[in-house]
């Protein structure tokens, strides 16, 4: 018994436990409040308790074409930015991992920089550059803006996985007669697959709810977060905005949840194989 309990972490004092839960509540109660007020019949004020319960806002939201246009746009931007990030990010990771070239460290640093820079700096920089080259602001400028930070997420994930992978596996594959393509497909790709998935989902979630860079790189387009932003000035639509916020949350929650699950389980098995 003694040896058993000593290998476990000791139980935290009650005060600490309460404080921890209070912290979690503080973070998540506001989100629940948004969910709650999607059901209110009173559109302008947040009264509590709710004067009643209604599902009519879901119906109204469903009929708002502008809302669904922005949802679709956001999904498209996120999907394409993520796809570009998957390819560029893993190529960059492979280059930095496998070869030792002049300026490797600087490239690594420059790749990671966009996520550390405040979005507003990236946004202004992109706007100036895009404007300076007389490129019209469009769907694609949003995608490019989002790709700057999506690439980082994929790059970091894949590079970390490469570093944990035994380098000799690639040599072993070639040694056994596989050419470069076969080696990639049968050995490298399965090794980094979960990292790609995790990085991709995180990138998708980041892109989907991005506001700042989007404001600077969009033309007439309204992504979902921007649409929500614009709704704030219309108090009568507040419950519809709440419904939209709920959609954003659900769409971003799922990938983040899944990506955490995936990376956690694959690091377990890799730990075992050591």
């Amino acid at each position, binding site marked *: 018994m003694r040896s058993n309990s000593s290998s476990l972490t000791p139980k935290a004092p009650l005060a600490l436990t309460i404080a921890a839960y209070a912290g979690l509540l503080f973070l998540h109660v506001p989100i629940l409040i948004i969910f709650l007020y999607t059901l209110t019949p009173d559109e302008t004020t947040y009264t509590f308790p709710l004067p009643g319960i209604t599902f009519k806002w879901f119906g109204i939201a469903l009929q708002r074409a502008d809302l669904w246009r922005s949802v679709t746009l956001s999904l498209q931007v996120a999907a394409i930015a993520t796809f570009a990030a998957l390819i560029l990010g893993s190529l960059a990771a492979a280059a930095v991992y496998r070869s030792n070239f002049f300026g490797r460290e600087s490239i690594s640093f420059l790749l990671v920089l966009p996520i550390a820079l405040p979005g507003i700096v990236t946004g202004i920089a992109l706007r100036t550059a895009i404007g300076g080259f007389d490129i019209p602001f469009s769907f694609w400028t949003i995608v490019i803006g989002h790709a700057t930070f999506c690439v980082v997420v994929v790059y970091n994930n894949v590079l970390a996985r490469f570093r944990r992978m*035994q380098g*000799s*596996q690639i*040599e*072993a*594959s*070639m*040694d*056994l*007669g*596989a*050419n470069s393509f*076969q080696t990639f497909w*049968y*050995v490298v790709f*399965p*090794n980094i697959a979960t990292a790609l998935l995790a990085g991709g989902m995180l990138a998708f979630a980041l892109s989907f709810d991005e506001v700042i860079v989007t404001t600077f790189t969009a033309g007439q387009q309204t992504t979902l977060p921007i649409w929500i932003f614009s709704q704030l000035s219309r108090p009568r639509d507040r419950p519809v905005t709440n419904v939209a916020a709920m959609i954003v949350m659900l769409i971003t929650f799922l990938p983040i949840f899944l990506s955490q699950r995936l990376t956690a389980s694959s690091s377990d*098995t*890799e730990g*075992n*194989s050591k």
Partner: protein
Amino acid sequence: MAQQTPPAIKFDKVSRHFGDVKAVDEADLEIRDGEFFSMLGPSGSGKTTCLRMIAGFDRPTAGQIFLYGQDVSNLPPYDRDVNTVFQDYALFPHMSVSENIAYGLMVKKVARPERMKKVDEMLELVQLSGFGGRKPSQLSGGQRQRVALARALINHPKVLLLDEPLGALDLKLRQQMQVELKAIQKRVGITFIFVTHDQEEALTMSDRIALFNQGKIEQIGTPAEIYEHPKSAFVAGFVGTSNLVRGEVARRITGMDVTFSIRPEKIHLGNIKEKAPTDSYSSDGTIRDVVYLGLYTRYHVELDGGGDLVVVEQNLKSTSMDVLKNKGQRTRLHWNKEHISKMGA
């Protein structure tokens, strides 16, 4: 005499330089068909670089490498009929044991039933029948080693390269694998090239050994030749322990201007009152130190007029009490003249 089969591997003045570092410097080497050949040397001596050049992971900066007469110096690894057992095994963690072993056949698009049949044969060869469905992470170190061996042998390569494959195993398993590797080599009849820094391992398993030092091959020969007749001080010191005698001391003993080495077990601790046998060299001295090591005893003898020699004697009859009494005794060391190896330097 005309040779029927060309050598399995031939190095023709092969060099591999990394910047200013000469990892391998003009190495000439011939490895015979079907031989168990060891490349022995301390780390950084160039033996692994040689192996990697044979495998194709590295290319020589100068010189040519021939595989059964064919120049392979610039072929990629997948175009050479050579397979490797890696030091860290390099098994594919996401594949089962069977899939790992079948990999070489799979990339060559061998049909599935044929593949499975060969995998079963290989599993049997390395005594892992029934383990095919497991993942590498579920195997012990020794078992992974066998999987790596089976995976490399399934293509039936012309030459199998083994890069310190026993390094990660504990002593007992290591000795068992040494015997087993040798047996497998006899059974499959493939040329094995074995890289190791462990001289005992090389002596146990090899038909011939190449001893590497600082990118150069110091000596090539059978284990007995290398042990009994080391050509240089380095060889004498690296393989087993040896007394290196030079200068004034060597002249006094042999009457010649030479440097020579003599193995400690070849020297007899003679009675100071008895004459040494006629065909031997001898030298008088005093036993300064006695180290009892169970199986044998090691004596450090200080020679009259300078110099030290280490002598070992098996404890056939003597006990520790007996041998320890020898400390401080006078002795007349002698050894057969044939047992010394003369060196150039």
